[in-house]
């Protein structure tokens, strides 16, 4: 399970966020993104020493200033439900997995990056992810190979 999917699942839940500077923010998570930037509502901010408090209706915290997040225990069970659901939706792994990325330009026979590579020829086909649609040239973006 990914930390960020747990965080996403925690949307709407109360949480505690401690920043690298020691301040803590208690509030309800409204939204978050892949950088761990978070948007809280109904926030109480506590100074590092715990001696000063500020209430604010909402705040936005840049992800890289966070030290840790404390999340209600029950959230982890909700993530598992979601991942198992999406897992069953997914096609079984195995043949034809991998992705490729086509050349951005108009070079013929766009080449995949990483695992999925084109079959080298002008013929499309093969289960592996291929880059660009073989040889057709000019097709922008990547073939997401999933056989």
């Amino acid at each position, binding site marked *: 399970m990914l930390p960020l999917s747990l965080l996403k699942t925690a949307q709407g839940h109360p949480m505690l966020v401690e920043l690298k500077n020691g301040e803590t923010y208690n509030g309800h998570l409204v939204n978050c993104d892949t950088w761990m930037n978070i948007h809280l509502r109904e926030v109480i901010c506590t100074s590092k020493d715990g001696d000063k408090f500020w209430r604010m209706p909402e705040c936005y915290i840049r992800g890289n200033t966070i030290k840790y997040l404390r999340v209600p*225990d029950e959230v982890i069970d909700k993530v598992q439900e979601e991942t198992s659901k999406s897992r069953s939706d997914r096609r079984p792994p195995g043949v034809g997995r991998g992705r490729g990325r086509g050349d951005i330009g108009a070079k013929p026979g766009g080449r995949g990056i990483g695992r999925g590579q084109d079959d080298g020829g002008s013929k499309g086909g093969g289960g592996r992810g291929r880059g660009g649609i073989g040889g057709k040239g000019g097709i922008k973006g990547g073939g997401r190979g999933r056989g």
Partner: protein
Amino acid sequence: MASAGPGLESLVDQIISVITNDGRNIVGTLRGFDQATNIILDESHERVYSTRYVLINCDLLPGLLSNALIGSLVQNSAISNKFLSWCLKVCCQHEGVQQLVLGLYIIRGDNISVVGEVDEELDARLDLSNLRAHPLKPVIH
């Protein structure tokens, strides 16, 4: 190609011990992690180390001290250091390692210094209340 992640797959669902950049020691079950070593710790607790002493027999101390005072007045001598440290031993005890329950935590990778596997059997044998150690200092960048 091997993944560029932190390689913690083998520790998932096991108890791990994390030492953070601010010198805390957090122990919990690893539920997940990502490329940036952000970590999900479930049922976690913090182990707080300290070398402080706490009073355990508060009621004894005044009696002991007043007896010593009277004794020293009678003998016209100062209370010895030896006696005072004995008093401390009787009335005080070091705190040992305190455990704070934290629950479900997401620790940001930036803040993680060390991730260690915990030998549960060995860990269960530890008598934390009798362990004493200085707390770790924070990492200085």
